[in-house]
């Protein structure tokens, strides 16, 4: 007589096959969109030899992944792409292990500090701002520097001159605790590489990036390392720092989404190979100018969002400690 039925039926069957519910992010996204994003960023990282975290993390924000999950999961994805990359460099013996370990010590300390800062600002509701400000500042500086460098280099090669090789002398050589790095052919204090590692570690934790785009210029211009060992050594350091960051986020914030990471990985791995092939067909200076453009574009978009009056002045977040 009294008949009540609550019937649950899946809706939107049309997209049913493609949508995937992410267990940690707790949002439903299109699996092909994630594969595509991974592939696109993979192509770029293959072309330019960068990790691509600085592009992927903001893209994940744009498709609605919570920032905390995006940052932590991207760290996990970078472990995979860096590991894949470093194996090739080990085969070519272009990894300075000793320098890698010194950078790593700094990096681990930096990552721990970074996660602490991240969690503190999360409790204050300022984490989005911090992440975005970091992106604007670093992408802005690096992008502009790269752009100017590449323009100068292009002008010089047009004139037929060769690129100048730079070695900085001065303050760095007066610091104590000197150590010999045979692979890099350097005899320098351990303080600068420790500091470089530390700052990259902080960035890795806060921005969800490997930090290659900052570490590589720092290694060349600040530490004076030869270019051929720079990428392999930075990848070596990045694996451990992002791995450590992944563990810290997984155990303190529970924000690593392994399903999301795997989907991004698959696309990224395939994309990276395509990218490498496109990369060899382009000239180094052209590549750098393109990369500089991309970096400045992402920077500009984020800066615009911070400066523009938002459509919604309010935001809803979880209360810490519940």
């Amino acid at each position: 007589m009294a008949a009540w039925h609550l019937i649950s039926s899946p809706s939107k069957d049309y997209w049913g096959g493609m949508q995937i519910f992410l267990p940690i992010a707790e949002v439903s996204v299109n699996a092909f969109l994630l594969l595509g994003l991974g592939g696109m960023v993979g192509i770029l990282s293959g072309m330019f030899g960068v990790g691509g975290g600085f592009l992927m993390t903001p893209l994940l924000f744009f498709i609605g992944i919570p920032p905390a999950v995006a940052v932590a999961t991207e760290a996990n994805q970078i472990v995979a792409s860096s590991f894949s990359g470093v194996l090739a460099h080990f085969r070519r013996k272009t990894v300075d292990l000793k320098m890698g370990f010194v950078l790593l010590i700094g990096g681990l300390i930096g990552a721990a500090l970074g996660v602490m800062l991240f969690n503190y600002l999360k409790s204050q509701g300022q984490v989005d701002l911090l992440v975005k400000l970091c992106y604007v500042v670093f992408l802005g500086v690096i992008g502009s520097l790269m752009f100017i460098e590449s323009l100068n280099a292009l002008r010089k090669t047009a004139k037929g001159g060769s690129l100048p090789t730079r070695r900085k002398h001065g303050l760095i050589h007066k610091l104590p605790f000197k150590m010999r790095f045979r692979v890099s052919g350097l005899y320098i204090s351990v303080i600068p590489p420790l500091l470089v590692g530390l700052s990259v570690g902080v960035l890795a934790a806060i921005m969800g990036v490997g930090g290659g785009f900052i570490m590589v210029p720092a290694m060349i211009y600040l530490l004076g390392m030869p270019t051929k060992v720079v990428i392999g050594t930075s990848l070596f350091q990045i694996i451990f720092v992002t791995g450590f960051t992944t563990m810290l986020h997984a155990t303190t914030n529970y924000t690593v989404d392994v399903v999301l990471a795997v989907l991004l990985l698959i696309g990224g791995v395939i994309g990276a190979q395509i990218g490498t092939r496109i990369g060899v067909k382009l000239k180094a200076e052209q590549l750098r100018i393109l990369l500089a453009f991309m970096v400045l574009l992402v920077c500009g978009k984020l800066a615009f969002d911070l400066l523009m009056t938002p459509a919604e002045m309010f935001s809803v977040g979880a209360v810490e400690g519940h």
Partner: protein
Amino acid sequence: MRWLVALLFMTLPAFSETVVLGLSQNKIAITTSFDGSEILVFGAVKRETTIPDGPPLEVIVTVAGPSEPVSVRRKDRRFGIWVNTDAVEVDRAPSFYAVAASGALNEVLNEVEDLRYKISIPHAIRSVGAPMSIIDAASFTEALIRIRSKENLYQLMENHIAVDDQTLFRGRIELPAALTEGDYETRIFLTRNGKVISSYETSIDVRKVGLERWLFSLSREQPFLYGLMSLAIAIAAGWAASAAFSLLRN
């Protein structure tokens, strides 16, 4: 106060129209392919006497997800950029809340009854104690409702329940893809002249299942193991990619 309670006890059973509920399905499984769900509500009114004269019977259905405190933050311009400044903590806000009614909510339900049963969205949210520095605390709860309504997490659906001959009724509530796990308290109210004459409560169990369940539990209960597993997958994928591509090259 005492007479009010006494009145309640005396008057409530006197009404002859009641809702009896039986569920054919009371579970929603969040699987990897979960993309929202739809609850179809069918029901009937049980009565011993003939249909009373006067205003017609109206039906209200509410579905509420697990409640949790949230903090609502407002942005303000500082040094040229927009920064979160003021924050108000809302003590109890359901993660999901839907109200469906057979007419306009303010017509089928009067304010006193709404306050008592906490039926409309603003009453389903409990907010006390905004900091003294914030004068317009109400705008924060309004913002919470606005933001969650935009995400389809809070729904007010008027004229959404069809009632036939004051006896049979049916409605539909759509659950979005971004659902929090938990017991979804489902309430059905029968009203006449704005007054609640009968109500029924049950709950829908929303749970992650299979891989979703396993990964989620692992990440909360064994976060260290979960982290190591994520890293192992990443390293294995990186190694496999490297191996596959060096094979391709040879």
